[in-house]
């Protein structure tokens, strides 16, 4: 047992193909690790569904009666259901950074950083785990919406596309959250910034009302807000006869592009969370 076994595919390290392979393999390992953690405590997934349920039941029911918001042919509850799905994806994802700070305080992040794992794989593994939580929220909200009489689209293709867009949205906002955690480094500051961010992200999007209702300046904010594209895709895919304002191609391109950019930034910043 004296010789250090040549486990490492040393030759591949540093070469583009070897690096890409490392990235894919290690991302899968990190995702597996997160899934194993979730499977030991699935109650957390159910608890996450309480808040969106309350929004739909209380806010949704009242505003459907008021008819204050022009949503075309759609009942307000139908209009809002995809918005609430986007909201729960946002809420699940935006506090992901705090888990990193917590794991940093425990020493878990340090040990992962000392392992030969590409930093972007560490980040993307977390993003995928946020995506899985998002998907479980989507399933619950689907059921809830159906029970409340929302006319949801049951086509398999639309459901799959919806789950993909949920995963993309969760990956996007969880990575944003990770970046914030790497910059602010402490739990207290993170909570402050997380709360400051969540409100404009949510209300400057079409989650609860059409963008056309907003003043001009807020419309501009909504246009650069990734959540707007998330909501737009969800509304087109979730509802029977649902339509997209921006076009599904644009929605997916924006979400994918922003996510890739954020993962690359987060990969560079990640090591700083331990210094």
């Amino acid at each position, binding site marked *: 047992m004296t010789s*250090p076994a040549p486990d490492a595919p040393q030759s591949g390290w540093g070469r583009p193909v070897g690096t890409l392979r490392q990235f894919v393999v290690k991302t899968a390992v990190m995702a597996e690790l997160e899934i194993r953690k979730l499977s030991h*405590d699935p109650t957390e997934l159910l608890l996450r569904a309480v808040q969106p349920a309350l929004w739909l039941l209380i806010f949704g029911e009242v505003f459907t009666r008021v008819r204050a918001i022009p949503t075309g042919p759609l009942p307000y509850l139908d209009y809002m259901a995809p918005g609430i799905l986007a909201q729960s994806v946002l809420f699940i994802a935006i506090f992901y950074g705090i888990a990193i700070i917590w794991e940093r305080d425990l*020493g878990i992040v340090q040990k992962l950083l000392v392992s030969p794992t590409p930093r972007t794989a560490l980040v993307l593994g977390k993003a995928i785990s946020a995506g899985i939580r998002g998907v479980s929220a989507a399933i619950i909200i689907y059921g809830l919406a159906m029970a409340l009489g929302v006319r949801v689209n049951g086509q398999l293709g639309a459901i799959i596309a919806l789950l993909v867009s949920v995963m993309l949205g969760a990956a996007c906002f969880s990575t944003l959250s990770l970046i914030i955690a790497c910059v602010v480094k402490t739990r207290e500051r993170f909570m402050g910034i997380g709360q400051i961010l969540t409100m404009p992200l949510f209300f400057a999007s079409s989650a609860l009302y059409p963008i056309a209702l907003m003043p001009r300046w807020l419309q501009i904010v909504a246009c650069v807000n990734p959540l707007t594209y998330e909501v737009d895709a969800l509304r087109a895919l979730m509802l029977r006869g649902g339509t997209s304002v921006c076009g599904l191609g644009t929605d997916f391109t924006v979400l994918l592009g922003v996510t890739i950019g954020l993962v690359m930034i987060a990969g560079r910043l990640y090591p700083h969370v331990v210094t």
Partner: protein
Amino acid sequence: MNGESDQRMAIVEIESLKRSFGSTVAVDALNLSIDAGDVFGLLGPNGAGKTTTIKILTTLLRPTAGQARVAGYDVVRQAGEVRRAIGYVPQLLSADGSLTGYENLLMFTKLYDVPRNDRSPRIAHAVTLMGLGEAAGKLVRTYSGGMIRRLEIAQSMLHRPQVLFLDEPTVGLDPSARRTVWEYVTRLRRTHEMTIFLTTHLMEEAERLCTTIAIMHRGRLVARGTPARLKASLQRQDATLDDVFIHYTDGMEGGSYHDVSRARRTAKRLG
């Protein structure tokens, strides 16, 4: 250790290493070389720069100046190679409480590219060597502090590192758990001829485990040698390592608020 050759190579080489945080200099012009196969103990009061040194050697921190090589690789320019050659047990508890002991081990064999066929035998070997047995199937959050430490050591040796870094391996453990960890580290050293680099401020720990020790004070190395030679250097009858420590660190009381609060937090988790 039998059969060690006389010409041992240096497996850790540190040259004029410096690291500062703002205006405080944590490590200052450090020179150090450690032979392969040694159990090397880095001692010093809190805040002497021990953890900073270990963080630089394990690629977690970049040095401000100077250089360091581990297993022949530069810690800055060849960080990837260094990471494959070392194992690391941080001062904080790093095993994942929401996974079982077995899962903690399995995920690390995957992260370190241990070949698929070697995974089970290596995990089984590590579990036996560290005396984890039945507990491997349980969630780590049900483990005692000493068991978590042993699991972490098991985790860090799965890829057969050339150098194992232990940052204060028994901080916060009660005396009997501490003794068990020492036994297991000794056992590990006997069965796998790896170099061990540990930091501690327990003189008993250094005396039990280390073949060579060095004392760090205010970011600099102030003494180095075998425990016996350092004791002899005081030229006093029945000098203990405690005396050596106090002699070389001017009996300075170290430790910032941050250090103390971190040590207490670890101790609390080990409960």
